[in-house]
């Protein structure tokens, strides 16, 4: 099995969800997709490992979910739109997780967004 190089591979800090990532992330994303349902969100919160087991997720993927480690999930094939459902299950939002991925506080993340909006162009 071999994957071709892509012209987006050099974009920093960006995990383009292509076929390679889709194959890698299939069980993780499949688990996340079930979280559209509140009963499933509750089942996940009650027993993360047990819930992840049902989807044949790798140990690394299960650990990333348990740690709510978004960069680890992305590196293991997670898709941000499905990960958003997992993040929501823990009452976090995309700014909380954006700050986590940047390694800054949520306040710093929000300030960064505001600064980009205030840029004079």
């Amino acid at each position, binding site marked *: 099995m071999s994957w071709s190089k*892509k012209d987006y591979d050099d974009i920093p800090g960006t995990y383009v969800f*292509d076929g390679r990532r889709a194959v890698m992330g299939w069980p993780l994303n499949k688990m996340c997709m079930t979280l559209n349902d509140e009963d499933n969100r509750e089942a996940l919160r009650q027993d993360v490992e047990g819930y992840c087991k049902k989807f044949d997720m790798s140990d690394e993927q299960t650990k990333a979910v348990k740690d709510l480690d978004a960069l680890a999930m992305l590196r293991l094939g997670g898709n*941000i739109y499905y990960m958003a459902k997992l*993040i929501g299950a823990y009452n976090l939002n995309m700014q909380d997780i954006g700050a986590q991925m940047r*390694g800054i506080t949520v306040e710093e993340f929000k300030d960064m*967004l505001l600064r*980009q909006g205030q840029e004079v162009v």
Partner: protein
Amino acid sequence: MATLVGGITSSHIPAVGIATTKRLFDDPYWKPFFDGYVPVREWMEKVKPDVVISIYNDHGLNFFLDQVSTFAIGAAHHYDNADEGWGLKTMPPVPGDPELSWHIIEALNKDEFDLTMCQEMKVDHGLVVPLQVIWPDAEEWPVKVVPVAINTVQHPVPSAKRCYDLGVSIGNAIRSYDEDLKVVVFGTGGMSHQLQGERAGFINKRFDLDFMDKIIDRQQELTALTTTDFIREAGSEGVELIMWLTMRGALGDKVKLLHSNYHAPISNTGAGVMLLEPVE
């Protein structure tokens, strides 16, 4: 015959749905955004369209990675909204127009666009949030909607040029429909934003404003952009701007700009709204 009376671009940020439900129209953070929709609401009130063709992308409500459709169209009497997993209020079902859907399906097929045809289709915030922000007081939606979902989740996603050409065919299909209807086309999504990776929170105001300028009468410069150009310049999720180009294709060569507003940030995103009218 049906008339294509206008085109609207709108962001579909989930936070906008929440702010609309909470009626934060005069909140200092939200006011510059919501004020941008006042002329759109007034125009809608005046024109009273019968149908909206909404070009949007699903984020994992109806479609999953088991079966990804590049282009899908709804052909149902109504479309349900549902729980997406993170607390958006479920909105009332959206009424459809199956006869118009099938007319578009057949016309597109003649133009060699073969769409996934859906008689059941849940519509997520990508479709519902623009309806909410334009009709915040509606107890039921005042228009019928034909949803057209374009894949932006699983790469490769369709090119800007392909989407624009799809839009051209959608426009021709609308204008050839033998029913006295006023139709508006929405292109929802964008503008620049990136939700994932160490680059999360990337917004490119310069790119967004340039895009809003060029989409009026230099759209060929935008359809020349590759998916990688969009990811680089508008962020990984900024590729949703292909929805805007699909809408623009439907309007025909020349358009008149009636209104536009840009505000950033809203949540993690540059938010643009435009109201365009086709010029014969």
